[in-house]
């Protein structure tokens, strides 16, 4: 199906025929779209992207707020905060966080941030926004499916949100939800209704992710504009493409794991349960294996971290190149390393299970495969650094975040070499070292990639700029804060301090970090406040930001900057532009930039 056909079919569905001719899009009288079909049940990829982003922002605030709450407990275990009782009642009796509440908070923090913010909020936003723009398509292959993808995500959010309000509390077995803990309501309060709602929400989320992912793949493969060969795609699109493939192949496995868990919970099966004596009672289940769940979970769980990081890598590659006024170094190596990471992502899941009772021989295979990932990662890092080298670097907030991303990715990636080596993992497994590692390498890095993307493409989304000064303050406080929060945690991990402990007073080996914990809590509150300021900047600039006056504010080569400032449905007035070159001709032959739409001149040098 070609682009024009799609848009027509799609318009038929939306009940309007004039969109294509309405170049200036937003809010113009030619539009016959109603408020609902334009802003709520919209099938326009740009609107869906904004829906994903704003929903993601709301979830990010909730998820981050949860982390502030449990950081209060960790930083000030002896103090009580009466205000908590006001808001949370029995969950924080006397202003002190109850253990069940603490575990519910960390579980929800993990689930929300990993899935709702960094999967849906990040790749949902930028895949929707950038794929049609940068491949040169009027919309997604199936705009209707795209709309469904958002609304399944929304439904997942509603169910997850409702689980926060049930009497026995939301799921509280950790975001990995290992059975038997997550299967037995008698062993854990959060494993009652809260876990059923958690599983339901996640099932809806998987559907959303599949609908989105299939659409992204179809669009990238089939709807590239004339001349846009695969090797002329911006790296953003490559990143999003591999992300979608990872998601489509691994999310169904996760769902199967959840369904078996649901069976064990309600239908008396024994997939994960065996030899259990709990709450004064021996359960009838025999023969199941909790390890099976871990395999099914991490078969998604590991690719998931690449689902989170690949879109960020793609956007960072693009932003570094644009703002260094230099081509990305080693385009093919970048694509190749993305491909290698995608393949390896499926072959390393058991490195989360070195001390789970896994056969040590299996463990050794996974050590080898895991450390292999360091090679494509190293290539990417060196290529990013070489991209900046001898450039002419502009420090827009997006560029600063891209540089911050590389710094964070180095710091967190290197500790992956520690943890991927099973020998070291024996000591560091499930300690604060792991917390530090994954927060830096996928949490903070992915957020940096996302912030870079928001600052960079905000003008495309809303036709206005965000406030730069607020952006700079946001960046510097977040960068310094993130290092202050997570760097010292490596030391706690080397001291063996276990994760998921809310109080260390009874421990002789782990109680020496009280002052450090307090520092981390204070910093995380400051970083939280500054990020609220980012949210404010985001919404304020939507209405009051400096207006965009040129089509191409960053002097970039990619196709999205050839659309009108406020593109209507269909993106381009008239014909979709034809592409004649790769997107990274910056500084070539003495020219600052050469857009992809410009034909190759007869005297142009080759590369």
């Amino acid at each position, binding site marked *: 199906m070609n682009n024009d056909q799609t848009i027509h079919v799609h318009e038929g569905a939306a009940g309007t025929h004039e969109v294509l001719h309405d170049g200036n899009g937003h809010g113009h009288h030619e539009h016959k779209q109603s408020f609902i079909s334009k802003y709520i049940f919209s099938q326009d990829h740009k609107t869906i992207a904004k829906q994903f982003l704003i929903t993601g922002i709301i979830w990010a605030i909730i998820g981050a707020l949860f982390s502030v709450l449990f950081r209060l407990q960790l930083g000030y275990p002896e103090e009580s905060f009466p205000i908590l009782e006001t808001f949370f009642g029995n969950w924080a009796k006397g202003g002190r966080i109850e253990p069940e509440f603490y575990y519910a908070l960390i579980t929800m923090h993990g689930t929300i941030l990993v899935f709702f913010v960094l999967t849906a909020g990040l790749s949902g936003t930028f895949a929707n926004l950038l794929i049609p723009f940068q491949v040169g398509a009027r919309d997604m292959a199936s705009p209707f499916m795209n709309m469904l993808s958002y609304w399944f995500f929304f439904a997942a959010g509603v169910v997850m949100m409702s689980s926060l309000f049930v009497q026995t509390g939301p799921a509280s077995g950790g975001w990995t939800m*290992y059975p038997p803990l997550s299967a037995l309501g008698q*062993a*854990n309060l959060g494993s009652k209704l809260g876990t059923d709602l958690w599983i339901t929400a996640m099932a809806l989320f998987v559907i959303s992710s599949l609908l989105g992912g299939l659409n992204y793949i179809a669009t990238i493969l089939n709807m590239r504009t004339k001349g846009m060969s695969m090797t002329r795609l911006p790296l953003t699109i490559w990143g999003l493409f591999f992300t979608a493939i990872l998601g489509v192949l691994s999310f169904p496995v996760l769902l199967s794991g959840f369904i078996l868990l649901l069976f064990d919970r309600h239908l008396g099966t024994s997939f994960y349960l065996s030899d259990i004596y709990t709450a004064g009672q021996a359960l009838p289940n025999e023969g199941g294996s909790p390890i099976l769940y871990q395999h099914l979970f991490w078969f998604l769980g590991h690719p998931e971290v690449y689902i989170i990081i690949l879109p960020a890598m793609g956007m960072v590659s693009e932003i570094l190149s644009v703002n260094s006024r*230099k081509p990305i170094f080693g385009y093919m190596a970048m694509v190749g390393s993305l491909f290698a990471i995608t393949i390896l992502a499926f072959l390393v899941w058991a490195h989360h299970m070195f001390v*789970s009772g896994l056969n040590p021989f299996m463990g050794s295979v996974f050590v080898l495969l895991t450390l292999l990932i360091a090679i494509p990662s190293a290539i990417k890092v060196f290529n990013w650094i070489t991209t900046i080298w001898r450039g002419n*670097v502009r*420090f827009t907030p997006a560029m600063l975040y891209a540089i911050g991303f590389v710094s964070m990715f180095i710091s967190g990636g290197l500790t992956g070499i520690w943890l991927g080596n099973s020998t070291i993992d024996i000591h560091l497994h499930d300690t604060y070292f792991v917390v530090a590692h994954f927060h830096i390498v996928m949490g903070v890095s992915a957020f940096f990639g996302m912030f870079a993307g928001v600052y960079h493409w905000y003008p495309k989304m809303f036709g206005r700029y965000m406030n730069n000064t607020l952006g700079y303050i946001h960046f510097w406080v977040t960068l310094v804060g993130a290092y202050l929060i997570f760097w010292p945690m490596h030391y706690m991990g080397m001291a063996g301090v276990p994760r998921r402990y809310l*109080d260390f007073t009874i*421990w002789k080996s782990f109680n020496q970090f009280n002052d450090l914990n307090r520092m981390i809590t204070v910093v995380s509150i400051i970083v939280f406040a500054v990020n609220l300021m980012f949210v404010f900047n985001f919404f304020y600039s939507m209405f009051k930001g400096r207006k965009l006056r040129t089509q191409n504010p960053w002097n970039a080569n990619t196709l999205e900057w050839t659309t009108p400032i406020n593109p209507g449905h269909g993106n381009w007035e008239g014909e979709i532009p034809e592409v004649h070159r790769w997107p990274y001709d910056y500084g070539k032959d003495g020219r600052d930039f050469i857009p992809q739409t410009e034909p190759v001149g007869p005297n142009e040098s080759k590369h």
Partner: protein
Amino acid sequence: MSSFWIIVAFLLGFLIVFQIAKASEYVAILKGEERARNESNRINGFLLLAFLVVGLFGVWYCNHALKDRILGEPASDHGVRIDRMLYITLAITFIVFVITQVALFWFAYKYQEKEGRKPYFFPHNNKLELIWTVIPAITLTVLVGFGLYYWYEITGEAPENAQVVEVTGSQYKWEFRYPGADKKLGKKYYREINPLKNNSLGQVWSDPDNHDDIVASQEVHLVVNKPVKFIIYAKDVIHDVGLAHFRMKMDAVPGMPTTMWFTPKFTTREMKQKNGDDFEYEISCDQMCGKGHFSMRGVVIVESQAEYDVFISKQKAQYAIAMEAEKGNPATPSPSGDSTQNKSTSISAVTTKVIQ
């Protein structure tokens, strides 16, 4: 009240920052966009360099402040190997860390936008890319080689003469079973578990191997310089035997016994001399197991063979305890049943809150 003032302070700070940010935008327009951009570019370039310098100092300072709080000398032979592997990896990764971070921030600073600077059109270079593919590959081969060598030593079969101890985790306590004089652990079956009948592990009494097995709770005694093999069970959910001082860790999985072995190098007394009287070898549960996870604490006591023999000779087989109780002599306290709760109460008020 103080939280109220903190919120007020945050709001005020935010208002001020916002006003400055808004004003700076007007200033930028007045000055001309080009000049304003140049200025902010210079400031941010400088800040990147400053961040690099201060950050590297911070890395040193963090190490300086915290290096004495991480664990000292490993207390097991495996621990020595794990620490060695850790330091090899630290050396390599730290070098890469410094080189890449310095390059990243230095290049950003050095090549910041300047009037008349021509960016160097440098799309690819096969030689460079080959170099930074091959060098990491070789380095990683070395790391994998060392790692797997140690890994097989650590996870290989325990020596013949190893002392065998069974460890069982359940919400939120540790229980231990010593094989007794016959050196054999008797059979058990989870449906036999009955704490009221002094059978908290589900030992099958018809198996004679069980008759001399000793069961204890919360504390396990080991012999210094003698290999010990733990056979690890869980009763309800997944737990994890975490032994930070020995650098060892293994999950306790319901329905699937796991094992771990190591040789303790120092007695508890020796460690107290080194680290102060407050020292104890602790067992921490390292796998999320429910609301009392953070208080699931056990203690390892490493002692000389002689001390160990004295300890064992004083223990009563669980079989004897259970049978006596059944004969209507409930005066004997069971070491595994109710003692847990008393112990936890004494550990701390926090634990009690959880268990009750």
